[in-house]
């Protein structure tokens, strides 16, 4: 497997992620999975819909992964985001880092998800019973 896995997929399978990040030089693997939460600010979410500018999103995800590999000397890194309609409890994003020691993989994993949320052109629409909202669009 390549050192970096960067993907936009229709459906995320969380069962293989630790195998994908496994490495003989790693003592620690940290993975974050973002999932659809039933309530947001007290309102019941029916589903989320994700849309992307795929070509640019892959580029931005690759930059984040490369920066993390360099900064924390990671052995492997994964950034995988799902698009389309997602129901409650479904995984929508997986980021993970594999490194010699645990400090590095924890810090890198946090960096991956925080930076993804800031820069990667993916948009999330929350579908409630009676309305839809593009998240973060308005102040």
């Amino acid at each position: 497997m390549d050192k970096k896995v960067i993907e936009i997929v229709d459906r995320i399978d969380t069962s293989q992620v630790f195998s994908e990040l496994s490495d003989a030089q790693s003592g620690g693997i940290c993975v974050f999975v973002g999932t659809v939460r039933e309530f947001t600010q007290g309102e019941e979410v029916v589903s989320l819909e994700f849309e992307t500018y795929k070509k640019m999103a892959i580029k931005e995800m690759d930059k984040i992964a490369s920066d993390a590999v360099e900064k924390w000397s990671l052995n492997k890194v994964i950034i995988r985001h799902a698009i389309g309609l997602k129901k409650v409890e479904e995984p929508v994003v997986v980021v993970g880092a594999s490194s010699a020691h645990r400090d590095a993989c924890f810090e890198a994993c946090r960096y991956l998800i925080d930076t993804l949320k800031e820069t990667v052109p993916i948009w999330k629409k929350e579908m409630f019973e009676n309305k839809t909202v593009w998240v973060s669009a308005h102040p």
Partner: protein
Amino acid sequence: MEVLLFGIAKDIVGESQLQFTESDKVPSSVSELKRMISETYPEFGKLTSLAVAVNSEYAEDNVPLDRNDEIAIIPPVSGG
């Protein structure tokens, strides 16, 4: 010149692309594009932020636009 639209930008315009066909109305820079769309669609002025990508990279306001560039409006992102 074509401009790709995503997320709420697509909803505001009601299309997935903007077309600039008359040569005297084609924006020559990122800042001019932003100004033109905000004048035509005031809803853009209410967004948290508004970015433009040129050839699938974020572009500063002073970046010039060419009609062969791939140009996209990037409303506030919300992945993850």
